[in-house]
């Protein structure tokens, strides 16, 4: 029955901007410090304080707007969004309501090879709230205001997304752009990049949107995917059973894999937005905007095209590598060292990614350098070590951070290419495996593989596999014809 339905999704993505100081005061934005140590009278909402807008926040938001093809408002203002909550000491969040900084943009990306465009309704600046910490021992709720006043941009998409995969790719695209612009550290597990999912379903062919729900604060790709799946199923089931979808705010419990209704439209806040009287409107000149545009770095999609056309990488590999700016930079450095883009790409896509995933690490925390990976590939290219040995060397590099040449030398892993030495090994293996020789003679070619394996094993993997193959065929044919 799912095939009968179409899903309509729009995302509201919150990205914490990587400014050194908060949006309206000079407190540090650093994450993970002791509670309430990055606070001052301004960000704790003391009586009588006034905000002063951090200009970097505007610059970063404009960068994001330009990188997502938005129009940049030459006149915009900030507004107060009023609501009570203990993590919001002023009892209003300073945000932007009807005149956001950036509007009417779009991003393009590919989903399973198909091109997709998602419209950006608006990007506005606002301040983050603090955090409530529930003390399980005393039952108290404590307030940490370190995050209060950390600058955010909210990127609101059009309801252009039609599947979980599109939602994830869209989010990945935004994440890449934010990283390339170096305006957000994109640490989703720390909450510096998170999103709300607005979702409705409708029967295929319907032109009217169904009632949407909003699932708040998803902070991993996995959670986004699972929450979307869950909500699609829930809504379709509800409709199929003759039920009604209510416009409501929902929470996702990623541990349990369940979404809950938090509040319905009836008890939704009336935020009583009005223009922030303590802050002057934001007026930007053409020169200012043009200056930022001229200084934008290469964007991930441009880099991807360059990798495909200039370096001959497959589209999939190019996409994966360029998604992360750090990965792409690592790639560039390794290629500069060894000159073999294809092989560097293969390594990054396979062994490097696998190890990073296993260790739950980011590429910038890896112990060896991009140049070391380049050197490893050079060792393979020159035939100093085999690919099989290279994998072992790589494991060592990953553990110790040692240079590949050092590992190869200290462990005596240099490849054996001396034909007479290898021929001796081959002959002894053949002599020890009479059955396989007979199988070969009887036409079972599979037997060759077994003998190759045994020979490589006998050489501890160091024998040049090409020479091993050649000599085994020579020796076996001698027996067959002899």
């Amino acid at each position, binding site marked *: 029955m799912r095939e009968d339905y179409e899903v309509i999704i729009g995302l509201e993505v919150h990205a914490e901007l990587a400014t050194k100081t908060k949006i309206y005061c000079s407190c540090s934005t650093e994450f993970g410090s002791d509670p309430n140590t990055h606070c001052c009278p301004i960000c704790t909402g003391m009586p*009588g304080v006034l905000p*002063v807008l951090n200009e970097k926040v505007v610059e970063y938001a404009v960068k994001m707007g330009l990188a997502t093809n938005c129009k940049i408002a030459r006149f915009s203002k900030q507004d107060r969004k009023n609501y009570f909550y*203990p993590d919001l000491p002023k009892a209003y969040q300073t945000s932007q309501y009807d005149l956001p900084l950036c509007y009417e943009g779009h991003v393009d990306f590919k989903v399973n090879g198909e091109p997709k465009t998602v419209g950006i309704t608006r990007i506005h600046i606002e301040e983050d709230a603090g955090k409530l910490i529930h003390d399980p021992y005393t039952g108290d709720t404590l307030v940490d205001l370190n995050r209060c006043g950390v600058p955010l941009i909210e990127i609101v998409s059009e309801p252009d997304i039609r599947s979980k995969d599109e939602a994830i790719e869209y989010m990945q695209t935004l994440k890449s752009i934010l990283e390339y612009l170096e305006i957000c550290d994109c640490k989703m597990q720390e909450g510096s990049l998170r999103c709300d999912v607005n979702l409705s379903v409708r029967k295929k062919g319907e032109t009217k949107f169904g009632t949407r729900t909003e699932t708040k604060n998803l902070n991993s790709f996995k959670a986004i995917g699972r929450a979307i799946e869950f909500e699609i199923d829930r809504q379709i089931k509800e409709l199929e059973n003759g039920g009604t979808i209510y416009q409501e705010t929902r929470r996702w419990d990623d541990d349990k894999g369940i979404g809950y209704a938090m509040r319905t439209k009836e008890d939704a806040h009336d935020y*009583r937005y009005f223009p922030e009287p303590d802050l002057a409107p934001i007026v930007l000149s053409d020169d200012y905007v043009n200056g930022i545009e001229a200084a934008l770095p290469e964007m991930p999609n441009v880099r991807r095209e360059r990798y495909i056309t200039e370096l001959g990488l497959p589209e999939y590999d190019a996409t994966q590598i360029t998604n992360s700016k750090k990965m792409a930079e690592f790639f560039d450095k390794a290629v500069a060292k060894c000159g073999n883009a294809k092989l560097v790409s293969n390594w990054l896509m396979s062994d490097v990614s696998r190890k990073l995933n296993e260790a739950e690490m980011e590429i910038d925390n890896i112990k060896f350098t991009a140049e070391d990976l380049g050197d490893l590939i050079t060792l393979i290219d020159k035939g100093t070590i085999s690919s099989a040995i290279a994998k072992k060397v790589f494991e060592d590099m990953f553990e110790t951070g040692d240079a590949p040449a050092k590992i190869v030398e200290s462990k005596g892993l240099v490849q054996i290419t001396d034909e007479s030495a290898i021929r001796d090994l081959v002959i002894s293996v053949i002599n020890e495996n009479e059955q396989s020789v007979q199988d070969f003679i009887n036409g079972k070619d599979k037997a060759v593989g077994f003998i190759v394996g045994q020979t490589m094993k006998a050489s501890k993997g160091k024998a040049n596999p090409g020479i091993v193959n050649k000599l085994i065929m020579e020796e076996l044919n001698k027996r067959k014809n002899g």
Partner: protein
Amino acid sequence: MYEKLTIHELRDKIKNKEVTIKEVVDDVFKRIEALEPKVEAFVTLNKEYAYKRAEELQAKLDNGDNIGILGGIPVAIKDNMCMKDTLTTCSSKMLSNFVSPYSGTVVTKLEEAGAIIVGKTNMDEFAMGSSTATSAHKKTTNPWDTERVPGGSSGGSAACVAADMAIASLGSDTGGSIRQPASYCSVVGLKPTYGLVSRFGLIAFASSLDQIGPFTKDVRDSAIMLNAIAGHDSKDTTSVEIEVPDYEKALDGSVKGLKIGIPTEFIKDGLNPEVKKAFDEAIEKLKELGAEVKEISLDYAKYALPVYYIIAPAEASSNLARYDGIKYGYRTANFDNLEDIYANSRTEGFGDEVKRRIMLGTYVLSSGYYDAYYKRAGQVRTLIKEDFDKAFADVDVIALPTAPNTTFKFGEKSNNPVEMYLEDIFTVPVNIAGLPGISVPCGFDSKNLPIGLQFIGKVFDEQTLLKVSYAYEQNTEHHKARPNI
């Protein structure tokens, strides 16, 4: 006797070592101790701090150092201005225990100018009122008649200067809260142009209207105080970056050729006949001194009061939301959950007038009402500003009474908020338009209650405002009268 002097008289005596700063402080505190039981102008007295400052300043002076334009002058500030490590209550139960962790910009500027802040003065709760009677602490009386109110909301700051309990003081003016009590107490009260004085550290009532200004015994002192507090502040982005002149230099004593506009139509209704008489006499005096008096029309000024009672409560409802019982200030003892903390702390912590305005403000900002009220009020506000712009194309200053009546008795208007609100009818348009306004003493009614004359100036033209006020004052005797208390 030194408490009776003005800033400009005292500064010379201090500089010339005719008197020590301690002696001045002694006299002021003697006066406070004698009169405070009657006047009740202060919420907090900084006696220890004052004597420490006096000693430091005297040492600097004796060392030949410059101690600033207010060097050694005892001043008071309204209790809505944050002063580090000092109780700052806004005369509310809600902040009755709030000790500010920082000093606002005007406090820093006063200290840099050498002033000694002797205390924090009583006010209407969160500056909402025209009588100072909504204070949660005490009832400040009018030194001219202690059965009557000093006006408000800066009643304590007006009364303490009128009664010589401070040489000068600071108040804040959102809809008349400096000028109206100045008028009621026969002192000079100046509300500067919005953006001339930093609001950083002023506990907000209505952010787009609030402005700090001085109460003084005469116009020269007003200019001196303005010299001390005016100027751009990087902590307040609504403070304007302009070159601040020496306001004292504007006091040349002449009004010759100056064009003064009178909005006759606007002030004809509801004006007490005795106030009208004093006003007319003042205008005659100005003519006599060589000013040219012109009729002007302010067609939209009559809408200023309704506009004010939408914009000010709207901003207040948001500004006062932070007093929620969580971080500081009053918290109810009576709660089971978060909702209760909010509701009960605010119910118990705020007085009626504050609650009334929070409700008004919440209503006008509500979804579905915003366009009809707040947005429309903003549009009318623009019309009022344009009205003034038009008028100022023809005249240099506008004159009108500060308040339609003289001071009233305690309780007389407290059952009818609208009647109380009408006392601000002549002062509110100035805040709505962001203009500077000043009230100077212009006589007394038959009960010997003071009457104020208000001048309104062009944006950032405090110089003309002070110039005309000074010329008027120097050619009349009203400012010399002191209350018999």
